[in-house]
């Protein structure tokens, strides 16, 4: 079974530009999560999408946004890039438990975003 896939592997942008990162979840998983792993800041929750809806959002400015498509894939958009946005962006997916709550999250390899 294929795992979570992310593209591109690396992305280099300049300050002020926009970045789009993509994620394909494990087949059968309906939830997609985005996390930022910046040097010295650990893993920080960004967004949770389930069934096409944004379910929760971390403490990030509105220029971080995303969406989930009908096939459950997702993209993360970062507008007006700043130098401190340089980080590894990780996507995770999970199925839902029988009761409806989200289950274990499985991570992709990440997209390394560098802002110059």
């Amino acid at each position, binding site marked *: 079974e294929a795992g979570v896939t992310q593209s591109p592997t690396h992305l280099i942008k300049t300050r002020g530009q926009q970045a789009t990162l993509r994620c394909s979840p494990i087949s059968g998983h309906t939830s997609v999560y985005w996390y930022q792993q910046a040097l010295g800041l650990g*893993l920080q929750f960004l967004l949770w999408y389930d069934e096409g809806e944004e379910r929760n959002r971390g403490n990030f400015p509105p220029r971080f946004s995303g969406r989930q498509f009908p096939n459950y894939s997702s993209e993360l958009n970062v507008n007006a890039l700043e130098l401190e946005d340089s980080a590894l962006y990780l996507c995770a997916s999970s199925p839902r438990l029988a009761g409806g709550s*989200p289950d274990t999250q499985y991570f992709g*390899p990440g997209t390394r975003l560098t802002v110059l």
Partner: protein
Amino acid sequence: QQQVKQSPQSLIVQKGGISIINCAYENTAFDYFPWYQQFPGKGPALLIAIRPDVSEKKEGRFTISFNKSAKQFSLHIMDSQPGDSATYFCAARSSNTGKLIFGQGTTLQVKP
């Protein structure tokens, strides 16, 4: 209240030894506690996870011990191997938020 505190920050263990990493939390709404292993340049990989109705869970060389009253949980790696050298993250989640709150990470080095 949303924090998960992880210690130690780094750990050096001899091959065959036991590696122990500890985490503490405050939010009693957390209902799921996974541990992830991350190698450089890779995404975190799930190692083992526990829910608060269980005090211990073992999978191979990896064991989670969970103390609900103390709001602490720990990862024990038995017979540590050089291939275990990686960064380990504990995490906690309350199901209604979906998000994982991660500890700061522990860099483990197992010396041959």
